[in-house]
């Protein structure tokens, strides 16, 4: 349970970090909060020969709340998001999800961008970013590029970063007025990796659903966007009375679409069942919080 040898760099600027990463290529790994990377080093699941510790790059430690966009830099910890009332008002889905990330000591060190880059299928932040139509800002040897969240996540623990690149920021557009949001997850123990979860946002006008987004957590490959369920909800009347049928129908579409893996924690069938339950709970909570009704 000790890491193998690596060369350790602690640059003070992004330019330096990128220079080292470019030279290291496939052998390099960025260390930010270390709450996923260090366990993998300890287990020797990954053995990078170059570790680039970005913790001393102060320019990456910024959280900016603008009129239309929230920007989270690569060194912002989960704990930095909690207790920020402006963030909670503008991006309640992100705030609610962050309270469910692991445990206090992990939230103190782990970063939002690190969780996004790691893309654990059971993690909260990748699904939140997809649900909110977020953008990943990537820095690399040939400059900066942006990718929509859905294009960034490419499969189990995988992302669209090329060797030498790193996640510099994530951007979240501000949800429109009348939007209700909810993040729910189910775990055996509070703070454990979720067996299943769901992120939902509903934008309502005159009791009619103008826009629905639903992402299922913990289903194998990473964030699973339940498009069929979203389509079934959009344009529907969703009052307290007839929301229930629509949500049950959406859950059926989720259950039909997800392909969860089986492991020691849960069978595939149980996970599929939970995906439907989580979808309904998230949608019901989102509807109760939405305006425009």
């Amino acid at each position, binding site marked *: 349970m000790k890491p193998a*040898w690596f*060369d350790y760099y602690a640059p003070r600027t992004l330019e330096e970090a990128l220079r080292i990463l470019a030279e290291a290529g496939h052998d390099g790994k960025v260390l930010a909060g270390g709450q996923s990377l260090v*366990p993998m080093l300890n287990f020797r699941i990954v053995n990078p020969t170059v570790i680039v510790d970005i913790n001393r790059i102060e320019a990456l430690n910024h959280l900016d709340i603008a009129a239309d966009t929230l920007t989270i830099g690569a060194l912002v910890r989960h*704990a930095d998001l909690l207790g920020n009332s402006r963030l909670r008002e503008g991006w309640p889905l992100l705030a609610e999800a962050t309270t469910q990330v*692991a445990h206090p*000591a992990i939230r103190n*060190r782990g970063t939002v961008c690190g969780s996004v880059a790691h893309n654990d299928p059971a993690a909260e932040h990748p699904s939140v970013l997809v649900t909110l139509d977020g953008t990943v800002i990537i820095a690399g040897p040939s400059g900066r590029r942006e990718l929509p969240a859905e294009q960034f996540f490419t499969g189990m623990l995988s992302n669209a970063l090329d060797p030498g690149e790193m996640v510099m920021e994530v951007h979240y557009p501000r949800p429109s007025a009348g939007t209700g949001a909810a993040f729910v997850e189910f775990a055996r123990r*509070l*703070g454990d990796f979720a067996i299943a979860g769901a992120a939902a946002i509903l934008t309502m006008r005159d009791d009619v659903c103008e826009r629905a987004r639903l992402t299922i957590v913990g289903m194998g490959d990473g964030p699973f966007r339940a498009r069929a369920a979203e389509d079934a909800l959009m344009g529907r009347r969703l009052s307290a009375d007839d929301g229930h049928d629509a949500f049950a129908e959406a859950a059926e579409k989720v259950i039909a679409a997800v392909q969860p893996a089986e492991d020691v924690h849960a069978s595939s069938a149980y996970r599929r069942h939970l995906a439907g339950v989580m979808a309904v709970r998230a949608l019901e909570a989102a509807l109760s919080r939405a305006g425009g009704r």
Partner: protein
Amino acid sequence: MLEDVKLAREQRISVTVNGKVHEKIVPVRLSLADFIRDHLHLTGTHLGCEHGVCGACTIEMNGRSARSCLTLAVQADGAEIVTIEGLRAPDGKRHPMQQAFHEHFALQCGYCTPGMLITAIELLRNNPNPNEQEVREALSGNLCRCTGYQAIVTAVLAVARGQSAGAM
């Protein structure tokens, strides 16, 4: 080349632990937990799982709790660290949380206790008057295989309510 920013496989670090500055040369792959235990001989910090799940190695780093098994010693260069050895007052009096654990039988084998104490103290700093659910949530990342948690939760609530002899 990169020699200007590359650090050798051993690096000199300066870390303040329980108010005392330590300057040591450490391997870059050494965990903060192993540094505290094997290099500073402060063996009150315990190592359970070594991958961030059990919480036994939780210490305070720059005012926030952290898993010392998931932090490299080199990352603590310049940091202020508090371990269980730093909880007692200079006159030897137990920290109120230690006193409450003692009074409420909140430990049996004691393996999880250092991490429990650091976590519980941080909870009351951020939320001085938590309810039982909030205490259980805050402690959810610290595994105890002896007590069943009830006595630990009771101890933390007693400190919050000023009902322990050593209340904060």
